């Protein structure tokens, strides 16, 4: 059995576990994958979080990607960070930078964190203009201040984490220059139509020629640039990019959300991909090892309409979440299939009036917009918590908002 086949059939514990600590966030990014904004009253308590960390240590999950919401606004965030590090669970956390003060930066660089902590600052534009349109007013300055604080405190190798969009693909060199300036590593990831991302995906996802631009840039300048394995669908342009090159959902990847629900992937927060909850008997380990959903995801996949494609070995039909949230069949091509098949299917569905996007099964967006609301969200034509509508929906009120 080849290694990749082992990955496909699932490992005893995840390799890439994301844990979102809270749905609360100071920002309201237009493309937020977890539709964050407000805290959920059922969020895990400090003790429950510690128990999860104990279990991760027992399962030898060597590190966890912590996100949110904005994880650092949880009052016990810094405590949990130290708790994890002291239990041999390294932490890589994603932040918009709001709480990375000079003092916190010094703490992160200190021996208390023992080099077990990685910080990822999100930035979706190399200029305030491009970034703030998506992430909200002031968010560029906040991120840059955090990066400067980290650098000045001697924190080595922070990450600048960029979601690639139609508006920032032209800024790849500028991002690389920013990373250089702040002694950071650039990390590029894919925009997926998850959470509020579903509402802006059509207007924000890179155009076909930009996909090519991105691929060429990664080939030419990608050394030392992290991609979180997100662009394996671009392997169909030619050479495979470094990484596992398969959809790891439920196989080597999974998500624990703020209330302890376990999903197949951080980009698949939907009841369809909900495997269980860490608070039920047996905890996370039971869910990971025994859930029927994960067993299903780990069973051999046929490749469906992609099986005939010459690029299937590298691309493997792309991202499950991207297909699901754009309304495409899971065993067909990715919506951003570089052969154009995904776009073609989307167009056909739209023309036939049959493109139906699954309704969000949870939404923690703020009910009332704040001054942090990004322009893009204001411009949005569809309401964020939209009903499950397709053009042929039977309900006469479908698509109608008061």
């Amino acid at each position, binding site marked *: 059995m080849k*290694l990749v086949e*082992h990955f496909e*059939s699932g*490992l*005893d514990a995840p*390799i890439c576990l994301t844990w979102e600590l809270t749905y609360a966030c100071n920002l309201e990014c237009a493309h937020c994958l977890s539709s964050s904004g407000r805290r959920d009253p059922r969020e895990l308590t400090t003790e429950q979080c510690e128990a999860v960390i104990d279990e991760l240590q027992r399962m*030898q999950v*060597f590190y966890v990607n912590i996100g949110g919401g904005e994880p650092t606004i949880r009052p016990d965030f810094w405590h949990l960070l130290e708790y994890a590090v002291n239990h*041999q669970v390294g932490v890589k956390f994603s932040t918009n930078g709001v709480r990375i003060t000079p003092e916190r930066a010094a703490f992160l660089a200190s021996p208390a964190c023992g080099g077990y902590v990685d910080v990822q600052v999100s930035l979706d534009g190399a200029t305030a203009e491009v970034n703030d349109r998506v992430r909200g007013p002031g968010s560029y300055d906040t991120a840059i201040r955090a990066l400067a604080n980290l650098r000045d405190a001697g924190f080595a190798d922070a990450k600048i984490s960029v979601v690639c969009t139609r508006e920032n693909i032209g800024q790849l060199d500028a991002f690389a220059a920013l990373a250089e300036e702040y002694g950071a590593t650039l990390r590029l990831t894919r925009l997926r139509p998850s959470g509020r991302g579903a509402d802006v995906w059509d207007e924000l996802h890179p155009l076909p020629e930009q996909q090519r631009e991105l691929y060429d840039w990664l080939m030419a300048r990608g050394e030392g640039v992290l991609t979180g394995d997100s662009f394996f669908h671009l392997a169909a342009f030619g050479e495979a990019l470094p990484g596992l090159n398969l959809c790891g959902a439920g196989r080597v990847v999974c998500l624990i959300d703020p209330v302890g629900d376990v999903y197949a992937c951080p980009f698949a927060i939907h009841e369809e991909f909900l495997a269980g909850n860490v608070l039920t008997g047996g905890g996370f380990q039971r869910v990971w090892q025994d859930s029927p959903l994960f067993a299903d995801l780990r069973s051999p996949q046929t490749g469906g309409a992609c099986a005939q494609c010459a690029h299937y070995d590298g691309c493997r039909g792309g991202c499950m979440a991207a297909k699901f949230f754009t309304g495409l069949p899971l065993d067909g091509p990715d919506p951003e299939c570089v052969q154009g098949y995904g776009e073609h299917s989307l167009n056909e569905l739209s023309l036939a009036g049959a493109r139906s996007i699954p309704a969000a099964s949870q939404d923690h967006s703020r009910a009332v917009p704040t001054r942090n609301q990004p322009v893009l969200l204001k411009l949005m034509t569809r309401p964020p918590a939209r009903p499950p509508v397709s053009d042929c929906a039977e309900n006469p009120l479908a698509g109608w908002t008061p």
Partner: protein
Amino acid sequence: MILDEAWRLSPSVALRPEPFGALAYHFGNRKLTFLKRPELVRVVEQLADHPDVRSTLDAVGVPEGQHPAYAAALEGLADADMIRPRSEEDR
């Protein structure tokens, strides 16, 4: 020649058993490596118990014809600091 040298698992590395062998994680440089065969896992685990790599391979039952392949795999692991040469004090 690594086969004649004394090595051990690096102290910052943890091994997690998996169906194909093991995952090796280095807490210092945060590198994750896959040990793709159970025999290789046993070799790495037992390096410290034997005077040199060759006798470790013999103890695990790796046929001599495969020694060069294992030597190459171990050199790769050494480059990532997954295994370390044993110094005099370790012996």
